[in-house]
């Protein structure tokens, strides 16, 4: 499949290392944030989410950190594997976004993660 990340920031890591992907979001009124993984030729896949009343949430091998003061979101992937290679997007949802809050998301720029064996 084609790459959707030709113009996106890149992060290269060795297998087994921890990865940190950063995202600056735009709206201080956003109340919900999601990280997506997009593999070549596929649609975005949900990884983990966090609400604005939290500053950290952990999943399996992934942790999302939220710093509302500086409007910054990060995704940490522990023991990165070659299968983690993909484009990663953060997305934000405005609180009470005109009644269409479910699924109406604003996406960040995206980061290409490449994991070398």
């Amino acid at each position, binding site marked *: 499949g084609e790459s*959707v990340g030709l113009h996106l920031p890149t992060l290269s890591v060795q297998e087994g290392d921890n990865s940190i992907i950063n995202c600056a979001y735009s709206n201080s009124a956003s109340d919900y944030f999601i990280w997506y993984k997009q593999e070549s030729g596929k*649609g975005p896949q949900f990884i983990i989410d966090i609400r604005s009343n939290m500053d950290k949430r952990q999943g399996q091998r992934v942790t999302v950190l939220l710093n509302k003061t500086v409007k910054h979101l990060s995704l940490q992937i522990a023991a990165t594997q070659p299968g983690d290679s993909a484009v990663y997007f953060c997305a934000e949802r405005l609180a009470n976004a005109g009644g269409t809050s*479910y699924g109406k998301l604003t996406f960040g720029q995206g980061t290409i993660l490449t994991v070398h064996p």
Partner: protein
Amino acid sequence: SAVISQKPSRDICQRGTSLTIQCQVDSQVTMMFWYRQQPGQSLTLIATANQGSEATYESGFVIDKFPISRPNLTFSTLTVSNMSPEDSSIYLCSVGTLGVGYFGPGTRLLVL
């Protein structure tokens, strides 16, 4: 999570023609969303499609260019009209469940 399928998965079209993209969801959902992902870029919301009402378009997108149908709670179509090479993108259908947006596999469109 919702299972979303799209047709066609990809197409190559001539400028000036139109293409209708179909989105099917395996469960009934109130709102469906259409996104565009231009080459090398992030996703941009085109419009929100509610069953029984007209679609709501985001700034920069108009109904004449991207007409949308939503005949029932599991199906929607997006038409890309009078296409130009600038319309070459991936078009993605999405539904929201408990605040999480789930995406279809996308339709990869190349306009020559």
